[in-house]
């Protein structure tokens, strides 16, 4: 979600196989830069593989360019990597949230599994309960929220959405990215 000079990105912590829950500490949101976070919901093995392969490409970029990547460029990097596998894709639907490293302008985008970028002005959602998430975000989000309000909005949206999904939940983590700091908080949720 976008806020006033800040962005928030959140995920649940469940790892499971269909109805069975196997782990409660599986984070799906990874830092890719000082103000750049990437969420990778979907098949767990592809979550980890895409994260690692992307980090590799990102490192090479930063070595060649000697600067930190901009969020929009990073999206293009992710999109390119996913489209390379057009006919045998990675089963992840990335969500990117970050601040431009120079202007600190908020940026969010999401993609489908073959890299089609969607770059709205408000919020993006992905996962198994996107319908519920869209409903919650549409109802709760408003523009120019301050970091504390953005945290509250983002938390309520994700928690109430996955409480209506049988295969999501079991804990949540929210990261608030501001110009000078990143705050990550785990939320106490229903564990069912």
């Amino acid at each position, binding site marked *: 979600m976008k806020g006033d000079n800040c962005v928030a990105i959140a995920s649940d912590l469940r790892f499971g196989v269909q109805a069975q829950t196997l782990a409660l500490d599986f984070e799906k949101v990874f830092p890719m830069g000082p103000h750049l976070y990437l969420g990778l919901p979907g098949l767990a093995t592809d979550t980890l593989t895409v994260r690692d392969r992307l980090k590799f490409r990102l490192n090479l970029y930063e070595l060649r360019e000697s600067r930190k990547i901009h969020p929009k460029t990073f999206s293009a990097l992710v999109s390119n990597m996913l489209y390379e596998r057009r006919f045998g894709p990675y089963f992840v639907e990335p969500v990117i949230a970050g601040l431009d490293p120079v202007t600190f302008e908020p940026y969010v985008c999401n993609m489908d599994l073959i890299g089609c970028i969607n770059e709205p002005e408000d919020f993006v959602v992905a996962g198994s309960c996107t319908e519920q998430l869209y409903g919650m975000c549409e109802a709760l989000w408003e523009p120019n929220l301050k970091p504390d309000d953005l945290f509250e909005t983002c938390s309520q949206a994700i928690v109430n959405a996955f409480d209506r999904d049988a295969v999501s939940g079991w804990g949540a983590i929210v990261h608030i990215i501001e110009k000078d700091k990143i705050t990550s908080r785990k939320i106490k949720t229903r564990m*069912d």
Partner: protein
Amino acid sequence: MALSGMTSQMSMTPKFQHNFMGPDWLHAEHSTGTSIMAVEYDGGVIIGADSRTTTGAYIANRVTDKLTRISDSIYCCRSGSAADTQAIADIVAYHLEFLSLEQGEPPLVETAANIFRQLCYDYRDQLTAGIIVAGWDSRKGGQVYCIPVGGMLVRQPLSIGGSGSTYVYGYVDANYKDNMTREECKKFVTNSLALAMMRDGSSGGVVRLGAIDKTGIERFVFTGKDIPKFYEG
């Protein structure tokens, strides 16, 4: 997708229609993918269930009451297709009320269980219903009868059912003791259901308990903080 993957006895296949577009909750049938349990104690029975009904992965009802009245002292715990079990329970309740009027005395738990069995067995190809019948009568006291999908009937001191039960067979086997008191039984059922709800995606919500003895039923609900917590690592 999480539909009620039931116990190994209950082979449930997700009823997806491949010619339907859109998310599965538009066309998947309601299922009480579930954790249910009933335990006998000296003087009555404790019955318990979770409160989640799903259509596909969407939680259609998070405060369902799966402990359904058949008569004042006989209740059933429902798992499987929500529609099937509701319909069967209604029919059994009707038959039992009629019988008890004819006979002039309160119905027997064994009678209720047998009517359930007759319906579940005769229509076994068309139904998906895993039911636990439990109650009290003056002849045999507290009784628990388990009727899994095929329509078998067996009386047991303790029975667990639903998709969530698979996760607690070990806990239940290790912690059940003969001749528990009513309070010990309540704690045992609550703990088992809490563990099942934690692991099973198709179970969750609140823990509903019922304590049935000769005076009738006393109901309990455990929500949020009151549900026992275990290892959450």
